[in-house]
């Protein structure tokens, strides 16, 4: 077994090596981009609807939906947490379904209807789920909250649509918005402050209201 000290030294050496290879890659990459530009461009146009408004953008092909929303459209309500689909902070609705916007390329959303936290409600006219999060104190630092709320809205829609889950007892029957179901369905949204119990209360409150 290596001592922790030895491991640290190795890691530092590796970091230096990695930095050098990254800058080298950047040089070859830009040269490659220039030679390819003629027939197949590394940037492209995309048009979709965000919160009811049509938008057209010219983007690097690598731009994720998350970065297009935050960096190009200044819709910074949607948050970048892990950027690898593990935390759920980037959750938005695409054609009414929740996805991780960090794991989706912007150009693949041509013609789609995207809803972010800014499109669910406004400070003057909150979405019922936003009000419920306020009422039940469903957050502490608030960083994961836009993703939690977008996910929460979609979860209640999924239950209404009859989508089963891992904890559904009889998968041939319609699922109910029980606490167990809500907890399972929200497992893709991490809250490091640990506001989970209040998030479940907020969702249970909204689920119990007449439609």
């Amino acid at each position, binding site marked *: 077994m290596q001592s922790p000290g030895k491991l640290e030294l190795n890691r530092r050496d590796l970091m230096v090596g*990695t930095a050098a290879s990254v800058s080298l890659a950047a040089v070859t990459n830009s040269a490659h981009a220039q030679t390819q530009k003629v027939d*197949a461009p590394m940037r492209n146009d995309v048009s979709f609807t965000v919160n009811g408004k049509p938008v057209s953008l010219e983007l690097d*092909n690598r731009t994720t939906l998350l970065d297009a929303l935050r960096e190009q459209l200044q819709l910074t309500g949607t948050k970048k947490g892990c950027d690898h*689909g593990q935390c759920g902070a980037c959750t938005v609705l695409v054609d009414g379904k929740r996805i991780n916007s960090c794991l989706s390329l912007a*150009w693949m959303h041509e013609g789609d209807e995207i809803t972010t936290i800014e499109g669910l409600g406004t400070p003057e006219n909150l979405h019922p789920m936003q009000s419920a999060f306020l009422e039940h104190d469903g957050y502490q630092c608030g960083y994961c909250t836009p993703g939690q709320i977008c996910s929460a809205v979609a979860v209640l829609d*999924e239950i209404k649509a009859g989508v089963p889950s891992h904890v559904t007892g009889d*998968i*041939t029957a319609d699922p109910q918005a029980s606490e167990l179901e809500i*907890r399972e369905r929200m497992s893709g*949204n991490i809250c490091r402050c640990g506001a989970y119990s209040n998030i479940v209360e907020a969702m249970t409150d909204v689920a119990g209201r007449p439609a």
Partner: protein
Amino acid sequence: MKSFTFERAETPAKAAAAAANNENAKFIAGGTNLLDLMKLEIEVPTHLIDVNKLKLDRIEETDDGGLRIGALVRNTDLASHQTVRRDFGVLSRALLAGASGQLRNKATTAGNLLQRTRCPYFYDTNMACNKRQPGSGCSAIGGFTRQLGVVGVSDACIATNPSDMNVALRALDATVETVKPDGETRSIAIADFHRLPGDTPQVETALEHGELITAVTLPAPVGGKHIYRKVRDRASYAFALVSVAGVIQPDGTGRIAVGGVAHKPWRMEEAEAELPQGAQAVANRLFADARPTDDNEFKILLTERTIAAVLDEARA
């Protein structure tokens, strides 16, 4: 992420032909696994072929009473389909045990079949990995192996297949339908689709370069109790330590496929013949040639106990 160009394919045959022209091209559908790996530069395609408009998103009954699942059917839609829930429950259960709601909304049937391993040494580009960089060695062997393979492993690789869906498809004797760049179509039995690592762990499936999955077909339902039991480090949104897909008949016979233990879903007919003798007899056959490490030896007993739990549930 490295720069790339892209195109939107119009037909499956055109998509396959486009891929054949470029050694570094990749198909992209849901993108939930591929983009993650591209951000880490573990996957570095120079060209992406978007297959989302190929209209392969339907679930249809086949003439022999089975089901034909389009390659682009999303995991949520497959798990929610009434016929799947009623007649192929183990498939619904397996899908719902995997990933998160957000990921299941994007991830496709074909993409799930092609999921890359979650071996931490494959993900860490500072480490040697024969799968990521053939010939570089395997840092997992002699490393932290708790989550890695115990059976069908090689001296080159001890990674596991991370998919839950694949385990259920193996228990259901699914077939993978494909089209090659020259337009030829073929059917590959799920048992032959995923490969053991051997000396070439970078070759994970029977697919040729450019070959596109168009559908997965299931034979007519076989009845029985459909159970998927997954054991993991947290109750939700985690990969399996071990998982068991069981289709158990009232007379105690049935099918058992195991996930989390090998480079492919692990199923043996001679082990299933032991089902009337109980979980221990089945596990003894499944793991007769196992080569576990000190850190993951527990998976053998855990699988036996998980099979026992499945058999209990089937009897209940």
